[in-house]
């Protein structure tokens, strides 16, 4: 099994392997097998399209967690220029599970904040696999309040397996840190755009997820508890995670219907990791489009719409 491909993608992996093989042969010989390769490529593309048009929620969970999936820093590098990372919560420390700083998008400065899972073992450990501790959320809050003072719009990129469940996290008040962000983000006098780029896990995701425009990448997920956690509680076994994923409605399709998510950003064929540049370009365009319309709104109206929207969640 090719580790770059998920289980349900294996037929694609087999075709791609064949193409690669043929390409090697083609390089060695004079025989023109270009036509054959083109045919196979077309077949692979159609197969991918077919497989991806009927994904189950559990498949989407796997794509959202794909080890090659672009993370926050991959997007920041491609979307923003002149990015200065800003560190620290000014009370306890700097949490690298949350990255924040000021950068320009198409010449306009914005405050960017996102969870970063880290690539490679050392980086992953340093970034705690993208599981922020209280100081991460407090850094985010500090940067967002600064953004408000300087009228910088805020863009958040959400990608976390959850806030860190550990002793130190509890000691320093992870619940309070998240709650505080929810409260303050509801009234910050600057536009906030939130984009779920990978895994939007529960309170740890929402802690930087309250805003004026909420978007999700096509194969990202957003849930109140991980499918494994849900399965463990209800079915008493994580084996039922696919069933839980089905029941929970954690994909953008369902969440758009529920009015919790405003838009889905389509991903390149086969998922964002198949073409990171193209994926970043789409995210950039999406941000620019909504930034403009949000910045055009008078401040009281912006805040009123945000508040009314929060109040509308779950009302009959």
């Amino acid at each position, binding site marked *: 099994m090719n580790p770059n491909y998920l289980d349900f993608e294996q037929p694609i992996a087999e075709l791609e392997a064949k193409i690669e093989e043929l390409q090697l042969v083609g390089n060695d010989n004079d025989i023109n097998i270009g036509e054959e390769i083109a045919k196979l490529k077309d077949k692979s593309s159609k197969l991918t399209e077919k497989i991806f048009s009927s994904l189950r929620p559990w498949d989407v969970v796997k794509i959202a967690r794909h080890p090659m999936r672009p993370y926050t820093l991959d997007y920041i590098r491609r979307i923003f220029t002149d990015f200065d990372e800003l560190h620290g919560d000014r009370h306890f420390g700097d949490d690298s599970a949350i990255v924040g700083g000021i950068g320009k998008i198409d010449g306009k400065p914005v405050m960017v904040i996102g969870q970063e899972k880290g690539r490679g073992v050392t980086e992953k450990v340093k970034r705690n696999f993208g599981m922020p501790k209280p100081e991460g959320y407090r850094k985010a809050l500090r940067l967002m309040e600064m953004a408000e003072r300087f009228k910088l719009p805020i863009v958040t990129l959400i990608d976390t397996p959850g806030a860190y469940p550990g002793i130190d996290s509890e000691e320093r008040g992870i619940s309070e840190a998240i709650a505080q962000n929810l409260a303050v983000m509801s009234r910050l006098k600057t536009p906030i755009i939130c984009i779920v780029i990978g895994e939007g896990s*529960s*309170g740890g995701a929402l802690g930087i997820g309250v805003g004026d425009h909420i978007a999700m990448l096509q194969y990202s997920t957003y849930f109140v508890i991980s499918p494994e956690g849900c399965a463990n509680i209800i079915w008493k076994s994580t084996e039922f995670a696919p069933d839980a994923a089905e029941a929970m409605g954690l994909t953008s399709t369902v969440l758009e219907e529920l009015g919790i998510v405003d838009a889905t950003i389509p991903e390149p064929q086969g998922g964002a990791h198949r073409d990171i540049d193209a994926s970043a370009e789409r995210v950039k365009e999406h941000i620019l489009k909504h930034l403009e319309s949000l910045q055009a709104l008078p401040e009281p109206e912006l805040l009123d719409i945000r508040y009314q929207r929060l109040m509308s969640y779950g009302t009959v």
Partner: protein
Amino acid sequence: MSWVDKILPSGVRRSDPSEKRKSGGVVPEGLWKKCVKCEAVLYRPELEENQDVCPKCDHHMRIGARRRIALFLDEQGREEILSGIEPVDRLKFKDKKKYKDRLAAAQKSTGEKDALIAYKGTVKDVPVVTVAFEFNFHGGSMGSAVGEKFTQAANIALQERRPLVCFSASGGARMQEALISLMQMAKTSAVLERLKQNGVPYISVMTDPIYGGVSASLALLGDINVAEPGARAGFAGPNIIEQTIRQKLPPGFQRSEFLLEHGAIDMIVRRADMRDTLARVLGNLTFYQN
């Protein structure tokens, strides 16, 4: 331990609380109740007189939402509000059972429509809006009905400039309403921020247990955060933390005393002192507003 020891009234401690009887110590429902902490067998009328706090070890037992309100508010002039709010199954959630059926069962067994009740009244003549979580309804979990009732109660508090007091007891966000539940965290936090900006006091009283989404929203946003003695409160449950860090948790972890020591709460208040303390604090907070 002889039967005489078992029925001894308060004042006499059991010789060895760690001693476990194989029978599970089942005491017939009725006149007697066993303390879950010290295992003393208590005379029910006496226990009730003591607000369901063990007279021997001071363990604060869990109590229902209605009893909570009855113990807290002045008897005169209290009235239930917002009793019409009902849960909705927007996702048509189904696991081994349908959520709809789970709701119906919970409604039948508790007599409540959902896990939160709301009252208007006074506490030692200080006007308040009070909400209380019913832990026996789906583990006091917060779905859309709980979030909506909390929000409407907070809005009444805001309009009438009455302090809001919340007694929480909850396992967290309600799984069966998925992301709609998560959004209740944002919704309740937003309305509490309005109270804060308008100088309407909010006191959050945490009672055993408070976890997850309720902890990471309304329970820790009080102007004053209070907890009952020994209440457990935290973001992640102890099992999850132990599985993550692969260590045993220190004794007293996530109890009120731990929260006080780490600066998460203002004070630990015994149930018997709740009315006096909160009425005094609220009186002081609103002194210059009236």
